[in-house]
């Protein structure tokens, strides 16, 4: 069965520091992968997606993610974090019938 694992429940970084959020997936075929962000009290917003082609994908707000098939990973990165990036981040993979399967989420805190 398809699944998504986000190993880090909470991460704290200083403003201006680099960020990497981990995501591992389990899926038999070529996965369609997503990262969503949820600000406090808000719905989910799509940051970026991977379907095929270039394994390094660029998203909104300066985020990028790299698909590594050999590691079954799709880690999210940002070179310099801003205080407004504090939020919860969800990795997701498309399962059967176009349904999304989400990881448990990683809550990011940013220290000034």
């Amino acid at each position: 069965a398809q699944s998504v694992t986000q190993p880090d429940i909470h991460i704290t970084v200083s403003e201006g520091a680099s960020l990497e959020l981990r995501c591992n997936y389990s899926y038999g075929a070529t996965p369609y992968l997503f990262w969503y962000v949820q600000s406090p009290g808000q719905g989910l917003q799509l940051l970026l997606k991977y379907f095929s082609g270039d394994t390094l994908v660029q998203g909104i707000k300066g985020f990028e993610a790299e698909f590594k098939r050999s590691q079954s990973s799709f880690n999210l990165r940002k070179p310099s974090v801003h205080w407004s990036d504090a939020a919860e981040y969800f990795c997701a993979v498309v399962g059967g019938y176009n349904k999304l399967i989400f990881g448990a989420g990683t809550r990011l805190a940013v220290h000034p």
Partner: protein
Amino acid sequence: TAGITQAPTSQILAAGRSMTLRCTQDMRHNAMYWYRQDLGLGLRLIHYSNTAGTTGKGEVPDGYSVSRANTDDFPLTLASAVPSQTSVYFCASSDSRQAPYNEQFFGPGTRLTVL
């Protein structure tokens, strides 16, 4: 355009009572979804609909029912609420006819507390 609207924003409900969470989209998407979000579990699919007139069960369908009478609306009903249904509920929609896959757009959520 409004995208996806959900109502109510929040609700406190007595156990055993029924309630319908409303979801409306104005993007003419064929597919709609209901998820619940619980701490440490992420979002889990409750029910989905690939087109008006059809519905399907997701990962956690028990205690919930849905209907899809038209393209725009996808209400979620709790017939007899229980405390374990306390959660934040998100509605989403997508144009699933676009290959290979089209993103899901999410509503702002409904926070439900069952006492």
